């Protein structure tokens, strides 16, 4: 199988590869030599399963995320859809020209997607602008990298932390686009029953941070 390394993270290597007539992302988690092999296998399996389940759940409730093609527990690898697109990080990068209208549109898409995800009790765990992708094909906002995701039971705290992590990304990487984050937060609060109590919590973290 010919694989091209696209990214090496702390937990996994990301490759592009051809897979059953399509182009796919293969995400291979590392073996951790410092852990006992049995424990390592158990923890890695659980992570892979959690990630795959969250991705599939997203698609089943109408949130755009990579489709899962194959979970290879033996080789610690998930094969999923390769999405052609630009990250929100790229779109907001210095020098990129984004109009006020485009910014509001982007904020609305992000706010609605995150509200839907949280309403389904899914926590992403690593929300950054690099993990939000606009598809070239139809401008849909896709959420990627569910490597730290989990499904929670009624945790306002976890959801607020998700938003707080995203706000930190905006403050550190896109300080000029903080208004986009605030518009996003407003949309989020309106699109989701408990949204406003979560954004209230998030503001508290923001204030503390």
């Amino acid at each position, binding site marked *: *199988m010919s694989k091209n390394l696209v990214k090496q993270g702390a937990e996994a290597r990301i490759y592009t590869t051809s897979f*059953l007539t399509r182009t796919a992302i293969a995400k291979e988690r590392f073996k951790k030599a410092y852990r006992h092999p049995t424990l390592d296998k158990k923890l890695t399996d659980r992570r892979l*399963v959690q990630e795959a389940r969250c991705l599939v759940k997203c698609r089943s*409730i*109408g949130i755009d995320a990579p489709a*899962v*093609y*194959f979970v290879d*527990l033996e080789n610690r690898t998930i094969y999923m859809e390769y999405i052609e697109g630009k990250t929100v990080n790229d779109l907001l990068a210095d020098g990129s020209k984004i109009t006020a209208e485009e910014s509001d549109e982007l904020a609305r898409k992000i706010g609605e997607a995150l509200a839907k995800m949280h309403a389904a009790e899914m926590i992403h765990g690593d929300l950054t602008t690099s993990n939000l992708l606009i598809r070239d094909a139809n401008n849909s906002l896709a959420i990627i990298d569910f490597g730290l995701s989990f499904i929670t039971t009624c945790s306002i705290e976890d959801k607020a932390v998700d938003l707080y992590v995203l706000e930190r990304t905006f403050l550190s990487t896109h300080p000029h686009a903080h208004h986009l984050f605030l518009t996003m937060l407003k949309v989020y609060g309106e699109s989701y029953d408990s949204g406003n109590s979560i954004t209230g919590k998030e503001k508290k973290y923001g204030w503390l941070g």
Partner: protein
Amino acid sequence: MYSSSLEPFPSHGLVHISLYRNVKNAKELRKRLLSRDLELSYAFIDAKVILDKFQVLVASNIAIYNETHHKLRTHNVHSEIVYSLSPSTNIRESLKNHGLSDDTTDVVIVKVGESAETIQTHLTKIIKGEERDVEEMTGCVDLARVKKYYKIADSISDREELLKAVVGSIAIKNLS
């Protein structure tokens, strides 16, 4: 017939997929399958539950994975393909919903291994029906049945979106 090797199992040989329409002897084939007639070492799938050949390839890949790692839940790799297609972990229900029934007329047939010519000749002998281009299977599907079996929201109507939801639920079925 469409023949291809699967990237995760490069040394495993080819997977062959054919489509037969207007099949007249589904009842006889089903009876022979139930009596484990070894001449019928194929996966027979009701084309009504298939959106695209990619769906068949995804299920075949999982069946071969299960065989390779001694995790087969059914008798052999071919019944495992039919079982893998279903989101249900109930074997009888999976074979009933995705396999042949007595009145099936459009059939997708999968074979793991052997050569395309051998299979072609053999299938012509055992199937009373017309072989068609594999890509034609996109026109045989019963979308209502697909949505029901895979529990897909009615709001999803785009074919590509449907296919993504379907392959996802196939991919995570056996994860405990």
